[in-house]
């Protein structure tokens, strides 16, 4: 019987056969050859201009290539043409969401080579501002990540709460995004009057909003379905790729340079804990960052209470000349391990600065991670890795 012939009255297809009919259609008629899909250079999920070329078999990624460098500004080369105090202005712009935290390892490298140490009060203020940068950076992530799975509300909350933190950073440093507040040997200024009380209030709001994120996003079944068991980074592989920070802690690696690196700033003086999650998936990365936001808010409250008095600048010469030597200083930045390998030949500027940024290594695992993922998950996986393009492109 052909399709054109009228069906005999009473002819019915057994419903249990429908499934097989559908399968036959797909196998015969739809060619599932590979397709190359170009995501970017501009895509809302990439927080900048990252280009992703994926080869698809149906809905699944077979292979992918990450193309970066659209915003390469050549900071390593430029650093060789500037004096030490001028370089802090440049490196503010590497990871622009946590500019203050970028300055710290570089300034430490210069200080260590010079044998200068910032006074305790400066160390405490640096710690407070680093943690505030971390909160500001993570709040954006906590909101954005919701956006990538289709939830608009968390993004508004994230931006609103980030504003409290940025206001505190601005009140102390004069800059919302690029404070350029560190000086070799200390800080530019002391904290303004009334800052401590206002920041305490802001931290209380942050702690409250972390609870909101917990209810709104983490407990949301749609969010869980979109992120659980997706984009799993095995701990050992992640480490060998150089994945660091919250991304690695979300794979169960209990490693935080604030605790496990060379001691720096005032982290030894306060009570805090390192959060890890055993799963290593997109959900774990979100969860760890949420806990770390809360932990950072608690740290800021403790630091403000324990803030010592005293000077904020050590005695340094008016013209900074750094003695010959090499220093490697790495710190736990919001996005992961950031480090500077500074080679000095005794001049007013460095001979060579190798900048180790967190996002470059964090994203270098993406081609491995995206293999076998579905197209919609590509976006959530990239968003959960949380990178800043300036931090990749340098």
């Amino acid at each position, binding site marked *: 019987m052909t399709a054109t012939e009228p069906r005999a009255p009473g002819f019915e297809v057994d419903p249990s056969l429908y499934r097989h009919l559908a399968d036959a259609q797909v196998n015969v008629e739809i060619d599932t050859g590979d397709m190359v899909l170009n995501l970017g250079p501009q895509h809302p999920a990439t927080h900048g201009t990252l280009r992703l070329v994926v080869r698809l078999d149906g809905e699944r990624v077979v292979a992918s290539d990450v193309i970066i460098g659209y915003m390469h500004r050549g900071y390593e080369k430029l650093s060789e043409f500037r004096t030490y105090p001028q370089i802090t202005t440049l490196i503010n712009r590497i990871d622009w969401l946590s500019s203050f935290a970028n300055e710290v390892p570089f300034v430490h490298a210069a200080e260590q080579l010079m044998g200068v140490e910032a006074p305790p009060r400066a160390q405490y203020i640096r710690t407070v501002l680093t943690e505030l940068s971390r909160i500001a950076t993570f709040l954006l992530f906590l909101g954005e990540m919701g956006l990538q799975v289709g939830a608009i509300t968390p993004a508004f909350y994230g931006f609103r709460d980030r504003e409290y933190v940025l206001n505190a950073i601005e009140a102390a440093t004069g800059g919302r995004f690029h404070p350029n507040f560190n000086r070799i040997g200390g800080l530019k200024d002391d904290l303004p009057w009334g800052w401590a009380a206002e920041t305490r209030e802001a931290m209380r709001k942050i702690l409250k909003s972390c609870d909101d994120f917990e209810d709104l996003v983490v407990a949301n079944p749609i969010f869980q379905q979109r992120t659980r068991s997706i984009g799993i980074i095995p701990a050992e592989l992640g*480490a060998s790729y150089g994945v660091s920070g919250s991304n690695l802690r979300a794979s169960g690696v209990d490693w935080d340079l604030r605790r496990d690196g060379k001691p720096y700033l005032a982290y030894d003086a306060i009570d805090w804990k390192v959060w890890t999650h055993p799963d290593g998936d997109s959900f774990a990365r979100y969860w760890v960052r949420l806990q770390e936001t809360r932990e950072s808010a608690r740290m800021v409250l403790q630091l403000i209470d324990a803030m010592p008095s005293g000077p904020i600048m050590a005695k340094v010469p008016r013209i900074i000349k750094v003695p010959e030597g090499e220093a490697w200083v790495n710190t736990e930045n919001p996005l992961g391990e950031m480090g500077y390998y500074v080679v000095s030949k005794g001049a007013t500027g460095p001979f060579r600065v190798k900048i180790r940024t967190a996002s470059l290594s964090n994203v270098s695992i993406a081609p491995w991670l995206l293999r076998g993922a579905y197209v919609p998950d590509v976006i959530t996986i990239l968003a959960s890795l949380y990178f800043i393009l300036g931090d990749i492109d340098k």
Partner: protein
Amino acid sequence: MSDDGAPDAAEGATSMSDSNVALLERISTALGSDAIVESVESLGDLVVRVRADRWRDAAQACRTELGFDYLSFVGGIDWQPAPSADEGSGDTSAPVQPKEQTYGVAGSAGRFQVFARVASTHVPRVGLTLKVDLDEESPAVASWTSVYPGADWHERETWEMYGFDFHGHPSLRHLYLPSGFEGHPLRKDFPLLAREVKPWPGLVDVEGMPGDASDETEAPDSAGGGDA
């Protein structure tokens, strides 16, 4: 808060902390002491220079036998001094570096070096900087990608920035720069063109600031013309 017990001047210091002595001992056993050319401690960090033909073995030993599971970075360095302003580069704003060619901690046999940093995520405060000398004519060294997959992008960056070849790298292609880019920007003889074309105010102010004493000696017209 401070560097715990690190000596102030590690440069050229022969003494090492106990942990670094122990670490060096372990590398020597794992790699064979003939593979290590020089080792020093710089600001509390152990820096080991290995023979070029053992560069990949060094990575393997670090990963499997010393427990350094984490790759921090791979980078390059060009020890040649950059041409200074009086040699015709026209740049008066860059800090003046010494003119003689010197080779940082752990030394170097020549102009080019590759250096890398590995760490352990299990043992706190343990890390190692490795250096290797490269030939000046055809700089090349073995790739680390088969040991640390994360070395891929770092080696691509070093390849394009310095022109170093990494044997065994799956695909050496441009990472940051456009694919047709010529030259190796981080080599010291590669000029920073923006500064060549128009020197920036730095160590020497090339353009008088308004109201400067030097400004008054010139006619107002010529000062205005200089801005255009």
